[in-house]
Protein backbone atom coordinates (compact mmCIF):
# COMPACT_ATOMS: atom_id res chain seq x y z
CA UNK A 1 0.00 0.00 0.00
CA UNK A 2 1.04 3.59 -0.51
CA UNK A 3 1.54 5.99 2.38
CA UNK A 4 2.45 9.64 2.42
CA UNK A 5 4.19 12.09 4.73
CA UNK A 6 4.38 15.67 3.48
CA UNK A 7 5.56 15.25 -0.10
CA UNK A 8 7.17 11.86 0.42
CA UNK A 9 5.46 8.71 -0.66
CA UNK A 10 6.41 5.12 0.09
CA UNK A 11 5.15 1.76 -0.97
CA UNK A 12 4.90 -0.78 1.87
CA UNK A 13 4.03 -4.43 1.51
CA UNK A 14 2.28 -6.34 4.28
CA UNK A 15 3.27 -9.89 3.44
CA UNK A 16 0.59 -12.55 3.54
CA UNK A 17 1.85 -14.31 6.67
CA UNK A 18 0.70 -11.07 8.31
CA UNK A 19 3.57 -10.27 10.62
CA UNK A 20 6.18 -9.41 8.03
CA UNK A 21 6.44 -5.94 6.57
CA UNK A 22 8.53 -4.91 3.63
CA UNK A 23 9.51 -1.57 2.21
CA UNK A 24 12.11 -1.83 -0.55
CA UNK A 25 15.03 -3.78 0.91
CA UNK A 26 13.81 -3.16 4.45
CA UNK A 27 12.26 -6.13 6.23
CA UNK A 28 10.55 -6.07 9.62
CA UNK A 29 8.65 -8.53 11.76
CA UNK A 30 6.07 -7.97 14.49
CA UNK A 31 7.47 -9.85 17.49
CA UNK A 32 4.73 -9.03 20.00
CA UNK A 33 1.38 -7.28 19.99
CA UNK A 34 -0.89 -6.29 17.17
CA UNK A 35 -1.62 -3.40 14.86
CA UNK A 36 -2.39 -1.08 17.80
CA UNK A 37 0.56 -1.71 20.07
CA UNK A 38 3.59 -3.96 20.15
CA UNK A 39 7.20 -4.39 19.21
CA UNK A 40 8.74 -4.58 15.78
CA UNK A 41 12.03 -6.23 14.92
CA UNK A 42 13.93 -4.46 12.16
CA UNK A 43 17.17 -6.12 11.16
CA UNK A 44 17.79 -7.30 14.70
CA UNK A 45 16.68 -4.07 16.42
CA UNK A 46 13.54 -4.14 18.62
CA UNK A 47 11.29 -1.07 18.40
CA UNK A 48 8.23 -0.56 20.64
CA UNK A 49 5.33 1.20 18.94
CA UNK A 50 1.70 2.25 19.25
CA UNK A 51 -0.62 3.19 16.42
CA UNK A 52 -4.15 4.40 15.87
CA UNK A 53 -6.30 5.16 12.89
CA UNK A 54 -7.01 8.79 12.06
CA UNK A 55 -9.49 10.37 9.67
CA UNK A 56 -7.14 10.22 6.71
CA UNK A 57 -4.41 7.83 7.76
CA UNK A 58 -2.52 6.58 10.79
CA UNK A 59 -0.93 8.14 13.85
CA UNK A 60 2.18 6.27 14.94
CA UNK A 61 3.96 6.65 18.30
CA UNK A 62 7.61 5.64 18.39
CA UNK A 63 10.14 6.69 21.05
CA UNK A 64 8.23 9.72 22.28
CA UNK A 65 7.27 11.03 18.87
CA UNK A 66 3.98 10.90 17.04
CA UNK A 67 3.93 10.80 13.24
CA UNK A 68 0.83 11.32 11.17
CA UNK A 69 1.06 9.37 7.93
CA UNK A 70 -1.61 9.57 5.30
CA UNK A 71 -2.99 6.94 3.04
CA UNK A 72 -1.94 8.04 -0.44
CA UNK A 73 -4.99 8.52 -2.59
CA UNK A 74 -3.27 9.96 -5.61
CA UNK A 75 -4.89 13.35 -4.95
CA UNK A 76 -2.43 16.24 -5.15
CA UNK A 77 -2.02 18.35 -2.05
CA UNK A 78 -2.78 22.04 -2.29
CA UNK A 79 0.36 24.02 -2.89
CA UNK A 80 1.29 26.31 -0.07
CA UNK A 81 2.37 29.91 -0.52
CA UNK A 82 -0.63 31.54 -2.17
CA UNK A 83 -2.72 33.76 0.10
CA UNK A 84 -6.00 32.08 0.83
CA UNK A 85 -9.40 33.42 -0.18
CA UNK A 86 -10.94 31.82 2.89
CA UNK A 87 -11.04 31.99 6.65
CA UNK A 88 -11.35 28.44 7.97
CA UNK A 89 -12.37 27.51 11.51
CA UNK A 90 -9.03 26.47 13.06
CA UNK A 91 -10.85 24.49 15.72
CA UNK A 92 -14.33 23.19 16.43
CA UNK A 93 -16.33 25.73 18.42
CA UNK A 94 -18.94 28.46 18.52
CA UNK A 95 -19.04 31.66 16.49
CA UNK A 96 -19.23 34.45 19.09
CA UNK A 97 -19.28 37.27 16.56
CA UNK A 98 -19.63 37.21 12.78
CA UNK A 99 -18.52 40.65 11.70
CA UNK A 100 -18.52 40.05 7.95
CA UNK A 101 -21.44 40.29 5.54
CA UNK A 102 -21.43 39.38 1.84
CA UNK A 103 -20.44 42.49 -0.10
CA UNK A 104 -18.31 43.97 2.71
CA UNK A 105 -15.03 45.48 1.58
CA UNK A 106 -12.37 44.40 4.07
CA UNK A 107 -8.72 45.24 4.64
CA UNK A 108 -5.92 42.78 5.32
CA UNK A 109 -5.83 41.62 8.97
CA UNK A 110 -9.24 43.17 9.69
CA UNK A 111 -10.89 41.06 12.44
CA UNK A 112 -13.93 39.35 10.90
CA UNK A 113 -14.88 36.47 13.16
CA UNK A 114 -14.60 35.83 16.89
CA UNK A 115 -14.76 32.15 17.83
CA UNK A 116 -14.86 30.36 21.15
CA UNK A 117 -13.72 26.85 21.91
CA UNK A 118 -13.04 25.30 25.30
CA UNK A 119 -13.75 28.72 26.82
CA UNK A 120 -10.95 30.40 24.85
CA UNK A 121 -11.68 33.29 22.51
CA UNK A 122 -9.95 33.56 19.16
CA UNK A 123 -10.19 36.41 16.68
CA UNK A 124 -9.86 35.51 13.00
CA UNK A 125 -8.80 38.20 10.55
CA UNK A 126 -9.03 38.68 6.80
CA UNK A 127 -6.09 36.93 5.05
CA UNK A 128 -5.90 39.81 2.53
CA UNK A 129 -7.84 42.87 1.38
CA UNK A 130 -10.92 42.13 -0.73
CA UNK A 131 -14.67 41.81 -0.89
CA UNK A 132 -16.60 39.24 1.13
CA UNK A 133 -18.28 36.77 -1.25
CA UNK A 134 -20.04 34.61 1.33
CA UNK A 135 -20.10 33.71 5.02
CA UNK A 136 -20.36 30.21 6.46
CA UNK A 137 -22.19 30.79 9.72
CA UNK A 138 -23.86 33.24 12.04
CA UNK A 139 -23.26 34.37 15.60
CA UNK A 140 -24.11 31.47 17.89
CA UNK A 141 -23.51 28.73 15.33
CA UNK A 142 -21.46 25.68 16.29
CA UNK A 143 -18.95 24.90 13.53
CA UNK A 144 -16.59 22.04 12.78
CA UNK A 145 -12.84 22.43 12.44
CA UNK A 146 -12.02 23.40 8.85
CA UNK A 147 -15.42 24.92 8.12
CA UNK A 148 -15.25 27.88 5.73
CA UNK A 149 -16.34 30.89 7.80
CA UNK A 150 -15.68 33.65 5.31
CA UNK A 151 -14.92 33.47 1.60
CA UNK A 152 -13.49 36.44 -0.29
CA UNK A 153 -14.16 37.09 -3.94
CA UNK A 154 -11.29 35.79 -6.06
CA UNK A 155 -8.64 38.37 -6.95
Amino acid at each position, binding site marked *: *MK*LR*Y*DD*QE*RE*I*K*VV*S*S*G*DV*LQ*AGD*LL*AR*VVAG*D*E*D*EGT*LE*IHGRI*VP*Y*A*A*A*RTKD*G*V*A*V*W*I*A*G*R*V*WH*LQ*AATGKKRETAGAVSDEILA*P*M*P*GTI*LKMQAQPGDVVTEKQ*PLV*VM*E*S*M*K*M*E*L*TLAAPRAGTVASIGGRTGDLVE*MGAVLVRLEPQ
Partner: protein
Amino acid sequence: MRVLIANRGEIAVRVAQSVQQMGFQAIAVYADSDRGALHVRSADEAYRLAGATVGETYLDIEQILDLARVHKADAIHPGYGFLSENARFAEACGKAGITFIGPTPEVIRAMGDKIQAKEIMQKAGVPVVPGVTVTLDEEITEKAAGVGYPLLVKAAAGGGGKGMRLVRRPAELKEAVASASREAGAAFGDARVFLEKYVERPRHVEFQIFGDSHGNAVHLFERECSVQRRHQKIVEETPSPALDDDLRARMGAAAVAAARAMNYTNAGTVEFILGQDGQFYFLEVNTRLQVEHPVTEQLLGLDLVRAQLEVASGRPLPFGTLQPRGHALECRIYAEDPARGFLPSTGTLQRFSAPRAPFVRVDTGVSEGSEVTVHHDPMLAKLITWGADRSESLARMRWALRRFVVLGVTTNLEFLHDLISHEAFARGDIHTHFLEEHSIAARTENPPDEAWLVAALQRAAVRAVGATASARDSSPWADGGAWRLD
Protein backbone atom coordinates in the same frame (compact mmCIF):
# COMPACT_ATOMS: atom_id res chain seq x y z
CA MET B 1 -17.99 11.29 56.82
CA ARG B 2 -19.48 11.60 53.35
CA VAL B 3 -17.89 14.09 50.96
CA LEU B 4 -19.57 15.17 47.74
CA ILE B 5 -17.12 16.29 45.06
CA ALA B 6 -18.70 19.03 42.95
CA ASN B 7 -16.35 18.69 40.01
CA ARG B 8 -15.17 16.43 37.21
CA GLY B 9 -11.91 15.40 35.57
CA GLU B 10 -8.56 14.86 37.25
CA ILE B 11 -9.26 17.01 40.30
CA ALA B 12 -12.43 15.05 41.13
CA VAL B 13 -10.37 11.85 40.90
CA ARG B 14 -7.61 13.37 43.04
CA VAL B 15 -10.01 14.52 45.78
CA ALA B 16 -11.78 11.13 45.86
CA GLN B 17 -8.42 9.42 46.47
CA SER B 18 -7.70 11.40 49.63
CA VAL B 19 -11.29 11.19 50.87
CA GLN B 20 -11.23 7.41 50.54
CA GLN B 21 -7.74 7.08 52.03
CA MET B 22 -9.03 8.88 55.14
CA GLY B 23 -11.76 6.24 55.45
CA PHE B 24 -14.55 8.51 54.21
CA GLN B 25 -17.05 8.09 51.38
CA ALA B 26 -16.49 9.97 48.11
CA ILE B 27 -19.65 10.97 46.25
CA ALA B 28 -19.27 12.00 42.62
CA VAL B 29 -21.70 13.96 40.47
CA TYR B 30 -21.73 13.79 36.70
CA ALA B 31 -23.35 15.21 33.59
CA ASP B 32 -24.65 12.71 31.05
CA SER B 33 -21.58 13.12 28.86
CA ASP B 34 -19.41 12.02 31.82
CA ARG B 35 -21.40 8.92 32.73
CA GLY B 36 -18.45 6.62 32.05
CA ALA B 37 -15.75 9.08 33.15
CA LEU B 38 -12.87 8.17 35.42
CA HIS B 39 -14.07 10.50 38.18
CA VAL B 40 -17.35 8.59 38.30
CA ARG B 41 -15.57 5.24 38.44
CA SER B 42 -13.21 6.52 41.15
CA ALA B 43 -15.97 7.47 43.59
CA ASP B 44 -17.86 5.26 46.03
CA GLU B 45 -21.18 6.59 44.78
CA ALA B 46 -22.07 8.79 41.83
CA TYR B 47 -25.22 10.74 41.03
CA ARG B 48 -26.46 12.27 37.81
CA LEU B 49 -26.81 15.99 37.20
CA ALA B 50 -29.72 16.67 34.86
CA GLY B 51 -29.09 19.15 32.07
CA ALA B 52 -27.14 19.57 28.88
CA THR B 53 -24.74 22.47 29.42
CA VAL B 54 -22.09 23.07 32.06
CA GLY B 55 -24.32 25.81 33.46
CA GLU B 56 -27.15 23.33 33.92
CA THR B 57 -24.93 20.68 35.52
CA TYR B 58 -21.59 21.35 37.26
CA LEU B 59 -22.51 25.00 37.84
CA ASP B 60 -26.05 24.38 39.08
CA ILE B 61 -25.87 25.24 42.78
CA GLU B 62 -29.43 24.16 43.61
CA GLN B 63 -29.14 20.81 41.90
CA ILE B 64 -25.81 19.98 43.50
CA LEU B 65 -27.06 20.96 46.94
CA ASP B 66 -30.21 18.87 46.44
CA LEU B 67 -28.06 15.84 45.65
CA ALA B 68 -25.89 16.57 48.69
CA ARG B 69 -28.95 16.73 50.95
CA VAL B 70 -30.69 13.67 49.50
CA HIS B 71 -27.54 11.56 49.69
CA LYS B 72 -26.59 12.88 53.11
CA ALA B 73 -23.25 14.48 52.30
CA ASP B 74 -21.54 16.06 55.33
CA ALA B 75 -19.17 18.16 53.25
CA ILE B 76 -18.63 19.38 49.69
CA HIS B 77 -15.25 19.69 48.01
CA PRO B 78 -15.49 22.07 45.03
CA GLY B 79 -12.15 21.20 43.37
CA TYR B 80 -10.91 24.05 41.16
CA GLY B 81 -12.86 25.93 38.49
CA PHE B 82 -16.66 25.51 38.36
CA LEU B 83 -18.11 26.57 41.77
CA SER B 84 -14.83 26.54 43.71
CA GLU B 85 -14.64 30.33 43.95
CA ASN B 86 -18.34 31.05 44.04
CA ALA B 87 -19.20 32.76 47.32
CA ARG B 88 -22.90 32.14 46.83
CA PHE B 89 -22.25 28.41 46.64
CA ALA B 90 -20.08 28.41 49.77
CA GLU B 91 -22.82 30.37 51.54
CA ALA B 92 -25.58 28.04 50.34
CA CYS B 93 -23.60 25.03 51.62
CA GLY B 94 -23.40 26.66 55.05
CA LYS B 95 -27.13 27.38 55.10
CA ALA B 96 -27.83 23.76 54.16
CA GLY B 97 -25.68 22.60 57.07
CA ILE B 98 -23.04 21.13 54.78
CA THR B 99 -19.36 21.96 55.29
CA PHE B 100 -17.82 23.79 52.32
CA ILE B 101 -14.20 22.64 52.04
CA GLY B 102 -12.55 25.97 51.40
CA PRO B 103 -12.37 29.47 52.82
CA THR B 104 -15.38 31.41 54.09
CA PRO B 105 -17.85 33.01 51.63
CA GLU B 106 -16.71 36.45 52.83
CA VAL B 107 -13.10 35.74 51.89
CA ILE B 108 -14.06 34.20 48.54
CA ARG B 109 -16.18 37.25 47.76
CA ALA B 110 -13.51 39.73 48.80
CA MET B 111 -10.74 37.98 46.85
CA GLY B 112 -13.00 37.26 43.86
CA ASP B 113 -13.30 41.00 43.38
CA LYS B 114 -9.77 41.75 42.19
CA ILE B 115 -10.20 45.45 42.96
CA GLN B 116 -11.28 44.89 46.56
CA ALA B 117 -8.57 42.24 46.96
CA LYS B 118 -5.92 44.76 45.99
CA GLU B 119 -7.24 47.28 48.50
CA ILE B 120 -7.15 44.73 51.31
CA MET B 121 -3.58 43.75 50.43
CA GLN B 122 -2.45 47.35 50.19
CA LYS B 123 -3.78 47.97 53.71
CA ALA B 124 -1.96 44.86 54.97
CA GLY B 125 1.32 46.23 53.61
CA VAL B 126 1.61 43.77 50.74
CA PRO B 127 3.11 45.46 47.64
CA VAL B 128 0.62 45.87 44.75
CA VAL B 129 0.90 46.92 41.10
CA PRO B 130 -0.58 50.34 40.28
CA GLY B 131 -3.87 50.08 38.36
CA VAL B 132 -7.35 51.46 37.71
CA THR B 133 -10.89 50.17 37.17
CA VAL B 134 -12.66 50.98 33.88
CA THR B 135 -15.98 50.47 32.16
CA LEU B 136 -16.50 50.54 28.41
CA ASP B 137 -18.46 53.78 28.30
CA GLU B 138 -16.06 56.06 30.18
CA GLU B 139 -12.88 57.82 29.15
CA ILE B 140 -10.68 54.76 29.20
CA THR B 141 -8.05 56.36 26.99
CA GLU B 142 -7.21 58.95 29.68
CA LYS B 143 -7.29 56.39 32.47
CA ALA B 144 -5.01 54.10 30.46
CA ALA B 145 -2.56 56.93 29.89
CA GLY B 146 -2.48 57.44 33.65
CA VAL B 147 -1.49 53.80 34.21
CA GLY B 148 0.99 53.88 31.31
CA TYR B 149 1.73 51.45 28.49
CA PRO B 150 2.20 48.58 28.19
CA LEU B 151 -0.77 47.60 30.33
CA LEU B 152 -2.94 44.60 31.04
CA VAL B 153 -6.72 44.49 30.75
CA LYS B 154 -8.02 42.04 33.35
CA ALA B 155 -11.42 40.72 34.40
CA ALA B 156 -12.49 41.98 37.83
CA ALA B 157 -13.91 38.52 38.56
CA GLY B 158 -11.16 36.76 36.62
CA GLY B 159 -8.71 33.94 36.96
CA GLY B 160 -6.95 31.40 34.79
CA GLY B 161 -6.12 33.98 32.15
CA LYS B 162 -9.71 34.35 30.98
CA GLY B 163 -10.72 37.88 30.07
CA MET B 164 -7.09 39.06 30.06
CA ARG B 165 -5.46 41.13 27.30
CA LEU B 166 -2.06 42.78 26.87
CA VAL B 167 -2.19 46.23 25.30
CA ARG B 168 1.03 47.79 24.02
CA ARG B 169 -0.40 50.76 22.06
CA PRO B 170 -3.35 53.11 22.71
CA ALA B 171 -4.88 52.06 19.35
CA GLU B 172 -5.39 48.50 20.63
CA LEU B 173 -7.09 49.58 23.85
CA LYS B 174 -10.78 49.75 22.98
CA GLU B 175 -10.93 46.43 21.14
CA ALA B 176 -8.99 44.74 23.97
CA VAL B 177 -11.31 46.12 26.65
CA ALA B 178 -14.41 45.11 24.66
CA SER B 179 -13.10 41.61 23.97
CA ALA B 180 -11.84 41.04 27.54
CA SER B 181 -15.11 42.29 28.92
CA ARG B 182 -17.07 39.94 26.66
CA GLU B 183 -14.91 36.95 27.57
CA ALA B 184 -15.18 37.83 31.27
CA GLY B 185 -18.95 38.14 31.00
CA ALA B 186 -19.21 34.72 29.37
CA ALA B 187 -16.81 33.00 31.76
CA PHE B 188 -17.73 34.62 35.08
CA GLY B 189 -21.06 36.39 34.53
CA ASP B 190 -19.30 39.65 35.43
CA ALA B 191 -18.04 41.83 32.58
CA ARG B 192 -16.15 44.42 34.68
CA VAL B 193 -12.48 44.87 33.82
CA PHE B 194 -9.55 46.90 35.11
CA LEU B 195 -6.25 48.18 33.74
CA GLU B 196 -2.96 47.41 35.39
CA LYS B 197 0.66 48.43 34.86
CA TYR B 198 2.49 45.71 33.04
CA VAL B 199 5.81 44.48 34.39
CA GLU B 200 8.15 43.47 31.53
CA ARG B 201 9.55 39.93 31.49
CA PRO B 202 8.00 39.17 34.87
CA ARG B 203 8.06 35.88 36.66
CA HIS B 204 4.91 34.42 38.10
CA VAL B 205 5.73 33.14 41.57
CA GLU B 206 2.97 32.08 43.93
CA PHE B 207 2.89 30.93 47.54
CA GLN B 208 0.65 28.18 48.85
CA ILE B 209 -1.04 29.40 52.00
CA PHE B 210 -3.06 27.49 54.57
CA GLY B 211 -5.05 28.76 57.51
CA ASP B 212 -7.22 27.14 60.16
CA SER B 213 -10.15 28.23 62.31
CA HIS B 214 -7.82 28.65 65.33
CA GLY B 215 -6.09 31.69 63.89
CA ASN B 216 -3.02 29.88 62.51
CA ALA B 217 -1.72 30.74 59.06
CA VAL B 218 1.37 29.47 57.25
CA HIS B 219 2.85 29.39 53.79
CA LEU B 220 3.92 26.13 52.18
CA PHE B 221 6.65 27.68 50.03
CA GLU B 222 6.48 28.87 46.48
CA ARG B 223 5.61 27.60 43.04
CA GLU B 224 7.27 29.09 39.99
CA CYS B 225 4.65 29.15 37.23
CA SER B 226 6.27 31.51 34.75
CA VAL B 227 6.09 29.39 31.62
CA GLN B 228 2.66 30.07 30.15
CA ARG B 229 0.91 29.99 26.84
CA ARG B 230 -2.17 32.15 26.25
CA HIS B 231 -1.69 33.40 29.84
CA GLN B 232 -2.20 29.89 31.17
CA LYS B 233 0.43 27.94 33.06
CA ILE B 234 1.87 24.83 31.44
CA VAL B 235 4.98 24.13 33.54
CA GLU B 236 5.25 24.67 37.29
CA GLU B 237 8.03 23.94 39.72
CA THR B 238 9.21 24.38 43.27
CA PRO B 239 11.55 25.71 44.51
CA SER B 240 11.70 28.63 42.09
CA PRO B 241 15.14 29.03 40.51
CA ALA B 242 14.72 32.80 40.99
CA LEU B 243 14.43 32.88 44.78
CA ASP B 244 17.27 32.97 47.25
CA ASP B 245 16.63 32.48 50.96
CA ASP B 246 16.24 36.19 51.59
CA LEU B 247 13.71 36.83 48.82
CA ARG B 248 11.85 33.64 49.72
CA ALA B 249 11.60 34.80 53.33
CA ARG B 250 10.32 38.26 52.30
CA MET B 251 7.76 36.93 49.81
CA GLY B 252 6.68 34.20 52.24
CA ALA B 253 6.18 36.80 54.98
CA ALA B 254 4.05 38.89 52.58
CA ALA B 255 1.96 35.80 51.73
CA VAL B 256 1.38 35.07 55.41
CA ALA B 257 0.54 38.73 56.04
CA ALA B 258 -2.00 38.44 53.22
CA ALA B 259 -3.47 35.30 54.79
CA ARG B 260 -3.73 36.98 58.18
CA ALA B 261 -5.33 40.11 56.71
CA MET B 262 -8.13 37.87 55.42
CA ASN B 263 -8.32 35.54 58.46
CA TYR B 264 -7.80 32.93 55.80
CA THR B 265 -9.01 29.39 56.44
CA ASN B 266 -8.20 26.30 54.36
CA ALA B 267 -6.00 26.18 51.23
CA GLY B 268 -5.29 29.20 49.07
CA THR B 269 -2.64 30.70 46.87
CA VAL B 270 -1.18 34.17 46.91
CA GLU B 271 0.09 35.00 43.44
CA PHE B 272 2.89 37.51 42.89
CA ILE B 273 4.62 38.86 39.86
CA LEU B 274 8.32 39.15 40.31
CA GLY B 275 10.23 41.70 38.22
CA GLN B 276 13.73 41.13 36.85
CA ASP B 277 14.82 43.66 39.47
CA GLY B 278 13.63 41.43 42.33
CA GLN B 279 10.62 43.66 43.10
CA PHE B 280 7.48 41.64 43.72
CA TYR B 281 3.84 42.68 43.57
CA PHE B 282 0.63 41.06 44.77
CA LEU B 283 -1.37 39.75 41.83
CA GLU B 284 -4.33 37.90 43.30
CA VAL B 285 -5.45 35.28 45.78
CA ASN B 286 -6.91 32.05 44.46
CA THR B 287 -9.32 30.84 47.12
CA ARG B 288 -9.12 27.19 46.12
CA LEU B 289 -6.77 24.29 45.66
CA GLN B 290 -4.65 25.02 42.58
CA VAL B 291 -4.16 22.82 39.53
CA GLU B 292 -0.44 22.80 40.34
CA HIS B 293 -0.79 21.80 44.02
CA PRO B 294 1.02 18.46 43.41
CA VAL B 295 4.47 20.08 43.20
CA THR B 296 4.00 21.44 46.72
CA GLU B 297 2.85 18.01 47.88
CA GLN B 298 5.92 16.35 46.37
CA LEU B 299 8.29 18.97 47.80
CA LEU B 300 6.96 18.67 51.33
CA GLY B 301 5.63 15.11 51.43
CA LEU B 302 2.14 16.37 52.22
CA ASP B 303 -1.37 15.49 51.10
CA LEU B 304 -3.02 18.90 50.70
CA VAL B 305 -6.51 17.52 50.09
CA ARG B 306 -6.26 15.60 53.35
CA ALA B 307 -5.13 18.78 55.09
CA GLN B 308 -8.10 20.62 53.57
CA LEU B 309 -10.51 18.05 55.02
CA GLU B 310 -8.87 18.18 58.44
CA VAL B 311 -8.95 21.97 58.61
CA ALA B 312 -12.55 22.04 57.34
CA SER B 313 -13.58 19.74 60.18
CA GLY B 314 -12.22 22.26 62.69
CA ARG B 315 -8.82 20.78 63.48
CA PRO B 316 -5.68 22.91 63.63
CA LEU B 317 -3.15 22.91 60.78
CA PRO B 318 -1.70 19.38 60.58
CA PHE B 319 1.74 20.23 59.20
CA GLY B 320 4.27 20.25 62.05
CA THR B 321 7.73 21.26 60.89
CA LEU B 322 7.84 21.88 57.16
CA GLN B 323 10.82 20.25 55.47
CA PRO B 324 11.22 21.03 51.76
CA ARG B 325 13.16 18.31 49.99
CA GLY B 326 14.65 18.38 46.51
CA HIS B 327 12.74 19.76 43.55
CA ALA B 328 9.33 19.02 42.04
CA LEU B 329 8.18 19.79 38.50
CA GLU B 330 4.77 19.59 36.82
CA CYS B 331 3.91 19.62 33.13
CA ARG B 332 0.32 20.00 32.00
CA ILE B 333 -0.48 17.65 29.17
CA TYR B 334 -3.03 19.28 26.89
CA ALA B 335 -4.97 18.11 23.84
CA GLU B 336 -3.75 20.94 21.67
CA ASP B 337 -1.50 21.60 18.71
CA PRO B 338 1.53 23.76 19.59
CA ALA B 339 2.38 24.03 15.88
CA ARG B 340 -0.96 25.74 15.26
CA GLY B 341 -1.06 28.32 18.01
CA PHE B 342 -1.96 25.78 20.72
CA LEU B 343 -5.41 25.30 19.26
CA PRO B 344 -7.44 22.70 21.12
CA SER B 345 -7.58 19.28 19.52
CA THR B 346 -10.65 17.08 19.92
CA GLY B 347 -11.26 13.39 19.37
CA THR B 348 -11.27 9.98 21.02
CA LEU B 349 -8.27 8.87 23.07
CA GLN B 350 -7.46 5.74 21.09
CA ARG B 351 -4.29 5.18 23.11
CA PHE B 352 -3.60 6.64 26.51
CA SER B 353 -0.73 5.11 28.38
CA ALA B 354 1.04 7.07 31.12
CA PRO B 355 4.62 6.36 32.20
CA ARG B 356 5.23 4.60 35.51
CA ALA B 357 8.41 4.94 37.51
CA PRO B 358 9.57 5.98 40.98
CA PHE B 359 9.13 9.74 41.58
CA VAL B 360 6.83 10.08 38.57
CA ARG B 361 3.23 11.00 39.38
CA VAL B 362 0.34 11.22 36.94
CA ASP B 363 -2.90 12.97 37.89
CA THR B 364 -5.53 12.42 35.23
CA GLY B 365 -9.27 12.26 34.70
CA VAL B 366 -9.23 10.46 31.37
CA SER B 367 -8.48 6.98 30.15
CA GLU B 368 -8.28 5.12 26.87
CA GLY B 369 -11.54 5.61 25.00
CA SER B 370 -12.37 8.96 26.61
CA GLU B 371 -13.76 11.66 24.36
CA VAL B 372 -12.04 15.05 24.33
CA THR B 373 -14.71 17.59 23.39
CA VAL B 374 -15.00 21.34 23.00
CA HIS B 375 -17.14 21.51 26.12
CA HIS B 376 -14.40 21.18 28.73
CA ASP B 377 -10.85 22.22 29.41
CA PRO B 378 -8.48 20.28 27.11
CA MET B 379 -6.09 19.24 29.92
CA LEU B 380 -5.54 15.48 29.70
CA ALA B 381 -3.19 14.96 32.60
CA LYS B 382 -0.64 16.48 34.92
CA LEU B 383 2.75 14.84 34.88
CA ILE B 384 4.74 15.48 38.06
CA THR B 385 8.30 14.45 38.76
CA TRP B 386 10.46 14.78 41.84
CA GLY B 387 14.25 14.87 41.99
CA ALA B 388 16.97 15.40 44.57
CA ASP B 389 17.68 18.61 42.67
CA ARG B 390 16.29 20.53 39.69
CA SER B 391 18.37 18.81 37.04
CA GLU B 392 17.31 15.39 38.34
CA SER B 393 13.59 16.18 38.26
CA LEU B 394 14.03 17.71 34.80
CA ALA B 395 15.79 14.61 33.50
CA ARG B 396 13.06 12.46 34.98
CA MET B 397 10.42 14.64 33.31
CA ARG B 398 12.10 14.38 29.91
CA TRP B 399 12.11 10.61 30.33
CA ALA B 400 8.43 10.56 31.33
CA LEU B 401 7.32 12.83 28.46
CA ARG B 402 9.02 10.51 25.97
CA ARG B 403 7.16 7.53 27.37
CA PHE B 404 3.69 9.01 27.57
CA VAL B 405 1.66 7.56 24.70
CA VAL B 406 -1.40 9.51 23.57
CA LEU B 407 -3.01 8.88 20.20
CA GLY B 408 -6.32 10.14 18.88
CA VAL B 409 -5.75 13.80 19.65
CA THR B 410 -2.74 16.03 19.07
CA THR B 411 -0.92 16.78 22.34
CA ASN B 412 1.78 19.10 23.62
CA LEU B 413 3.95 16.19 24.88
CA GLU B 414 6.78 16.69 22.37
CA PHE B 415 6.55 20.46 22.76
CA LEU B 416 6.88 20.19 26.55
CA HIS B 417 9.87 17.90 26.12
CA ASP B 418 11.62 20.40 23.86
CA LEU B 419 10.60 23.30 26.07
CA ILE B 420 12.14 21.90 29.26
CA SER B 421 15.19 20.82 27.24
CA HIS B 422 15.78 24.42 26.13
CA GLU B 423 19.03 25.77 27.55
CA ALA B 424 17.34 28.92 28.91
CA PHE B 425 14.84 26.77 30.78
CA ALA B 426 17.62 24.54 32.08
CA ARG B 427 19.36 27.68 33.41
CA GLY B 428 16.11 28.70 35.10
CA ASP B 429 15.99 31.91 33.07
CA ILE B 430 12.22 31.91 32.65
CA HIS B 431 9.51 34.55 32.62
CA THR B 432 5.90 34.73 31.48
CA HIS B 433 6.92 35.52 27.88
CA PHE B 434 9.41 32.72 27.62
CA LEU B 435 7.56 31.16 24.69
CA GLU B 436 7.40 34.42 22.77
CA GLU B 437 11.08 35.11 23.35
CA HIS B 438 12.28 31.58 22.62
CA SER B 439 10.14 29.97 20.00
CA ILE B 440 10.23 26.23 20.50
CA ALA B 441 10.56 25.17 16.89
CA ALA B 442 8.29 22.49 15.54
CA ARG B 443 10.30 19.36 14.81
CA THR B 444 11.06 18.88 11.17
CA GLU B 445 12.79 15.52 10.82
CA ASN B 446 11.14 12.86 8.69
CA PRO B 447 9.51 9.74 10.07
CA PRO B 448 11.91 6.81 10.55
CA ASP B 449 11.44 3.58 8.56
CA GLU B 450 9.66 1.90 11.44
CA ALA B 451 6.95 4.60 11.49
CA TRP B 452 6.12 3.83 7.86
CA LEU B 453 6.01 0.11 8.58
CA VAL B 454 3.78 0.46 11.64
CA ALA B 455 1.45 2.76 9.72
CA ALA B 456 1.15 0.13 6.99
CA LEU B 457 0.42 -2.53 9.60
CA GLN B 458 -2.35 -0.41 11.09
CA ARG B 459 -3.84 0.43 7.69
CA ALA B 460 -3.77 -3.23 6.68
CA ALA B 461 -5.67 -4.20 9.83
CA VAL B 462 -8.18 -1.43 9.24
CA ARG B 463 -8.87 -2.73 5.77
CA ALA B 464 -9.03 -6.32 6.97
CA VAL B 465 -11.61 -5.41 9.60
CA GLY B 466 -13.60 -3.64 6.95
CA ALA B 467 -13.50 -6.72 4.74
CA THR B 468 -14.42 -9.33 7.33
CA ALA B 469 -16.73 -8.34 10.12
CA SER B 470 -15.30 -10.88 12.56
CA ALA B 471 -11.64 -10.21 11.85
CA ARG B 472 -11.10 -9.19 15.50
CA ASP B 473 -12.25 -12.59 16.74
CA SER B 474 -9.51 -14.53 15.04
CA SER B 475 -5.86 -13.69 15.14
CA PRO B 476 -5.08 -11.44 12.23
CA TRP B 477 -1.76 -13.26 11.90
CA ALA B 478 -3.50 -16.58 11.30
CA ASP B 479 -5.65 -15.38 8.45
CA GLY B 480 -3.37 -14.71 5.53
CA GLY B 481 -5.96 -14.02 2.89
CA ALA B 482 -7.38 -10.78 4.17
CA TRP B 483 -3.90 -9.42 4.77
CA ARG B 484 -2.46 -9.48 1.32
CA LEU B 485 -2.11 -5.93 0.25
CA ASP B 486 -0.04 -4.56 -2.50
